[in-house]
């Protein structure tokens, strides 16, 4: 009967699709291609046309297969994508964007640029919100390619400039690239999102042409606009910009302070700590201690020699000066129930000593001061260090013995 046949037909169609999927997931691209061809035949014979699903399936699966198929070439991929673009206006921009991504990843920048320009000039009535977004992205990526062009011209010019030879046409082209890139890039970075790549390029352009105010404004907006996600990179870019332009310590510290509030485990915290230590204000030095303790809370910093040496040096300074012992105490109190197991176990003492002597030295210093000379970590490392006749370990032993009373005040 007819309905039965229809059911069987759709069943085998589905089965065919499952075969394609299975073959793709097992990386059998040739097999997948054959099955996909079968599936297309199925679709041709199918007059029910219930949804837009199949077009998207063919686009997605076909593109993936062509990416991996041993016999496919970029030309075949291009013609496939061109066909896919005609399949529906709703997907046109998306397919264009994906096509140019593929070209970009294969190093075919010019073709990608053409593709993007074509997509940008495409008009079809009212745009849905997703299409507006896609259009903005297309524009931004075109801006990115303009920027790459600009870099190329700049390099040519710089090389030739050294020879004392100036080419006006190259310079002109470079400027036109700059204008196009700047116009295209500045659009997208106003919309909330993660635009690290575009912001970096745009700031680079602005800096080259000396428009520092605009650059600073863009970076400030990117870092501090609350509609944007809390992207640590935005703060890093701002900090690097400020540093490049020789801003005052105070500005740099305030920029890093905000980064510290968002990501206390960021790698710039070491710089932040060093900067704070050099400060004359005791409040800032206090903050520095807090920062370095905070950094070492995180598992990722557990074996970082730099961080441990920083902490060891600072604690030592405080102990020697016998001023602000309460700072250490304040930091140590909330940590004393879990730092010993986290940092100063006997197992870690053994391993650190075997793997990195400087690390074990710095950690032993901190352990000796914070936990006293009976601490397992301190005892093990010191024992090993004295056995190996390393001078600094003997000095460390003397130091801890000498300042035993201060250590007791902290741990007590």
């Amino acid at each position, binding site marked *: 009967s007819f309905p039965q046949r229809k059911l069987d037909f759709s069943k085998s169609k589905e089965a065919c*699709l*499952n075969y394609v999927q299975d073959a*793709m*997931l*097992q*990386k*059998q691209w040739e097999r997948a291609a054959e099955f996909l061809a079968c599936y297309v035949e199925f679709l041709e014979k199918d007059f029910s046309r219930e949804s837009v*699903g199949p077009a*998207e399936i063919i*686009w*997605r*699966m*076909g*593109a*993936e297969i062509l*990416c*991996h198929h*041993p016999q496919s070439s970029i030309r075949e991929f291009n013609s496939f994508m061109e066909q896919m673009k005609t399949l529906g206006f709703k997907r046109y921009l998306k397919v264009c964007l*994906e096509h140019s*991504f*593929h070209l*970009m*990843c294969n*190093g075919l*920048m010019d073709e990608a640029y053409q593709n993007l320009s074509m997509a940008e000039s495409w008009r079809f009535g009212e745009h849905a919100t997703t299409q507006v*977004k896609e259009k903005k*992205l297309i524009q*931004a990526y075109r801006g990115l390619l303009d920027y*790459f062009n600009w*870099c*190329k011209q700049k*390099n040519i010019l710089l090389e030739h400039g050294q020879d004392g030879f100036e080419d006006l046409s190259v310079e002109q082209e470079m400027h036109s690239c700059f204008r196009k890139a700047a116009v295209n890039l500045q659009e997208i970075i106003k919309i*909330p*999102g993660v*635009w*690290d*790549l*575009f912001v970096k390029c745009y700031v*680079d352009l602005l800096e080259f042409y000396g428009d520092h105010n605009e650059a600073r404004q863009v970076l400030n907006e990117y870092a501090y606009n609350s*509609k*944007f*996600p*809390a*992207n*640590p*990179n935005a703060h890093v870019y701002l900090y690097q910009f400020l540093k490049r332009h020789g801003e005052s310590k105070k500005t740099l510290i305030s920029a890093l302070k905000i980064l510290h509030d*968002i*990501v206390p*485990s*960021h*790698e710039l915290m070491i710089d932040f700590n060093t900067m704070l230590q050099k400060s004359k204000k005791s409040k800032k030095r206090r903050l520095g201690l807090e920062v370095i303790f905070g950094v070492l*809370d*995180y*598992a*990722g910093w557990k074996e970082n020699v730099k961080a441990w040496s920083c902490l060891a040096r600072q604690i030592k300074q405080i102990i020697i000066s016998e001023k602000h012992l309460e700072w250490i105490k304040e930091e140590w109190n909330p940590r004393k129930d*879990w730092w010993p*197991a*986290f940092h100063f*176990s006997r*197992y870690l003492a053994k391993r650190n000593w075997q793997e990195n002597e400087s690390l074990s030295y710095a950690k032993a210093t901190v352990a000796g001061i914070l936990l006293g000379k009976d601490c397992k970590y301190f005892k093990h490392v010191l024992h090993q260090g004295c056995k190996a006749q390393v001078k600094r370990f003997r000095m460390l032993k003397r130091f801890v013995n000498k300042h035993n009373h201060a250590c007791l005040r902290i741990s007590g």
Partner: protein
Amino acid sequence: MEFPAALFPSYFATGPPQEEGGPALAAGWGEHDQVLEAGPGRREVRPRLSPPRSGRRCSGTSAVPASPCLLPTGYWVTSLEPEDILYRGVLYKKLKTGKSTATLDFTKQLSHFFVDHPEDAFGSMGQLLHQNFFLGNSQLRRRARNSSIRMTALMEEIDRLEARHGCPQQHLVPRLRWFSHICRDWLFEVPLRLLAERLHEELQLQWASLLFDDSCTGGALAWLPSKDLRTGCLVYPGRQAMNHLYFQDVVLKDLPRAQASPAEFELNGRIRQVAAARLDGEDFVGVRSDYHCGVWRVPGRMGAAPTPLQVIQTDVPASCLTVSPHLPGELAVCTQSGAIYLWSVEMGLQRLRHDTKTMFFRDHSPWRWSDFTAHPRVLSCADRTGLQCLDARAPEKCHFDLFKVGQEAGCQQGERVVLPMYLGTAHPSQHLVTTQFSVYVLDERLPMVPVLKWAHMMKDPPLFSHLTPGGSGRSHKVLLGASRTQELILLQYQGKRWGLRGGGLSACQLAGPPQKLHNIMGCLQHLPTQLPHHHHLLQQRLGAPAAGLATALQEDGPRESLLVFQLSEARDIFYQRLIHEIVEPPAPILMDEAVAAPGSSPLFETTAALRYRRWLKDFSKGHGEHPQHTRPSIFSQKRIFTRRELDMSAGLSTLHQQARQQLRQAMQEGGLIQRWDTPPPQPSLPEFLEPPGGRDTLSARLTTAWSEGWCQWSEEKSSYSMAQRQKALRERRRRQKRARGRRSLSASFTSSHTYQSELSELSDGAPLPPPLSPAALPRETANSPPPAAVLDEPLLSSQSLHCRGIPKERRKTLRDYLSVCAEEPPESPEPLGSQASQACIPLSQS
């Protein structure tokens, strides 16, 4: 740890998810979505861009399926299947497509309860009344009639109702209605309404857990590697109730081999989850059952005994148990009441949060999860709507949102968190969040915005995941496993370093296309052919839902391979080996290895096959030992052979008897008649095969069964009997025509038997060959009485009954009785005999 110098571009919006999602089957393919500079571009003249999914990579797969590793023999409790509780006729597949809603077979379950637990259902009333209910056939004496009633007729009615189950023209019997109306209020031990409510509740719970069972989230299998990566310890649940915990030392050579007998602990409930973490050279193993959680410590050296440390009990079932990778003896526990605890072996329990409501929007699921983060004092907590991070030092004040089902992560409508996992061993601040559609990699330092997203296209939501960190320059491997469909997907991702010139870390990228691994069920097709019922049992056993997942990294000289263990609910552990395959980098940036399934090393295949063979033997033996436990037996003598048939075959040739004896013996042992591993010597068929008409059907069938010619035989037989049947029908019609004149009164009484045989034919779904006149035949049988009834007609007609002095009200009973007797046909009714055997053949084959 460093933060990537630049992230992939993406839009950021807040609010509930807007997207409807593309076709689920292809959602993860063909999309770059975004690209990023693949190196410090400024220094290069020609910048290179890379997508979040760096593609070009190839690797081989093989047809070798998962191989058995530790297979307990013997009986296992099959899990509930949709057919068990659904109203019959509703197919699960149809349900899945959403074309019809589930209809739970409530009445069947209730009647099961009454039959299986009569004491609980009617205990006291039954005792009080049993003297007043008379079940015999004789008339009640006058004196007894005052205090007791006859229930025989009622019982018969009930039996008849059972026989007519599913009939659209079911007549309600007034006597039954009357009885139930009178008794409904007082007969039951538990008030019927209450009982029904409870049962319905339970049924719905069972149905919900059939659709999606989250109690085993996390998986109940763990691998504790040793230092040299050649040995390790497998931790898994065992015994029929899955309430025994085993620590089995395993040596990884060509095959993983169990060494010595395992350490065994008996627990107080079914083990749902086994979680493990390595800390300071020791392993901490957390075990979760519904109301108990326990923690064990396993010393690093091989053969050292695990020591139980502590057990906690919860009032509400626990839904999560994770072991801290930072501090020894610390665990996170969640219960279904919405409470999250930090459990320290030394300090005891600390409640961090108690909230029955979900975090971001309302969702009915009581499931909660918690895991650790880069900061040892900060825990992540999750429900179906998203993830938050809590500071254990000040849980009320300090928390931030890590992931939310919404536009921030580009989620789809209806998407829910299924399994979060801390990826600490690969990168200290990364988390994996899987939903039923996608996998997300999140960085704590940039919450809400996933650093990697991929639609996994799995048919069932992934309940198990396992991370194998990549180490120096290698990609990290994440395995995702589903429970019901046993799917296994391998994903590789990485955050590479850009050279040594201080380039920094690149953003997270998927390395190569995802790969599907073999599942347990897949090995069925590689097994030797089995007898149909063994095949069915095997299928059931191998198709049991997966219950856990673990991987072991094995270093064997220069070759490095990954062993993937999969545990099923039938307690079987299967493994497969993935070998690293260094692929020549097609582009200078894309350099890392891909993973391939094992090549077809002959050793591997034979050893695996040997293991299978041994297991199969034990498997079939195990089923022989517990015949009372197996599924309702497929062969039922009562239904296949009538006594007469058996008697007739008694005095046959000695060869036949021999064959019968052997068949019986084989059936008793549950073994095979022919071994699958040796090519069977073909018995010479022509000697035994006689035309079916010459011998009785049973002996012919047995003979052919002996020589494996069943299907053919049944085909022949059925076509032969078709012809015979048609002949009989024609004959009957002729007789009917003759009889029509005098039989007009009794015609209506004889339908019950016809109906019965009709039903058994239909319900068996036997592939009957098409009758010669397809439209005419069924109508014929429905309208006219079968030959047996016609033969008895003079006896059954009410006039003749009246003549014999049988009272009017008993005539019907007698007629029924006689019609049942007629089911066992007298001497010559071939049509009926063949009909019966026809109906049996497909039964025994199914």
